[in-house]
């Protein structure tokens, strides 16, 4: 699954689609969240879209501080091919919208 969408050629198209889906899914979920765990397996999709976006998004790298509204907060298992011996198999995904972001 994750290995099918590689950075490089087609990356922009991939991010276009992933972010569009992410926005739509988050809009649907926003009233029910935040919560720590999802029982509904349909939410798995949004988590993995978010994982891919985070993994391949390139931008200006800065040390930043922020306060944000929480939209999604969930433990998510990483795709098998992302896990190495120094990486854990699970992470907590937090998806939010900032009140502000400033240089730290």
């Amino acid at each position, binding site marked *: 699954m994750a290995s099918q969408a590689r950075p490089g050629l087609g990356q922009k198209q991939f991010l276009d689609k992933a972010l569009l889906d992410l926005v739509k899914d988050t809009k649907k979920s926003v009233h029910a969240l935040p919560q720590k765990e999802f029982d509904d397996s349909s939410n798995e999709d949004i988590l993995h879209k978010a994982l891919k976006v985070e993994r391949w998004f390139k931008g200006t790298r800065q040390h930043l501080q922020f306060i944000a509204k*929480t939209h999604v907060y969930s433990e998510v298992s990483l795709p098998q091919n992302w896990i190495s011996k120094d990486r854990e198999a699970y992470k907590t995904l*937090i998806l939010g*919208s900032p009140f502000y*972001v400033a*240089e730290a």
Partner: protein
Amino acid sequence: MIEPKVYVYISETKVNMFYEQLESSDVRKVGAEYGVDVKLFKWTGHRDRERIVTKQDKLKRVTEFLLKSRELGTLANPLRYFSGTLEMNWGSLAGEAVLFAGSTAKEIVLLIGSLNHVVGAAGAPQGGIPSSARAGAEAVFG
């Protein structure tokens, strides 16, 4: 001592929404508790000046409220709101939205907002979302 911040993003939508609610409750409180002080102030002959409330003033007020709120969590324990400090990649998405992405050993953080609220120039554009998503993005992420 005041330490000015270099802001890269301020959501005026959220800040204004919170500020108006906080301010209206403050007016009632101040009117009830400090009415005498206001009279003394006028009696000494100072001229009242209408203070212009800037975006920064509003943000400061809202931030103070959030920092005192029991609903403000951390990266390790987000609540209704969360705050943190993190190395993040950020930039515009095809002129439609702005994304801040970062991770720690345990957490992955994605913050999405409207490009209209970026202070100054956004970072290098990468990826993007179609125009059709813009209204949805603004409705959700303000």
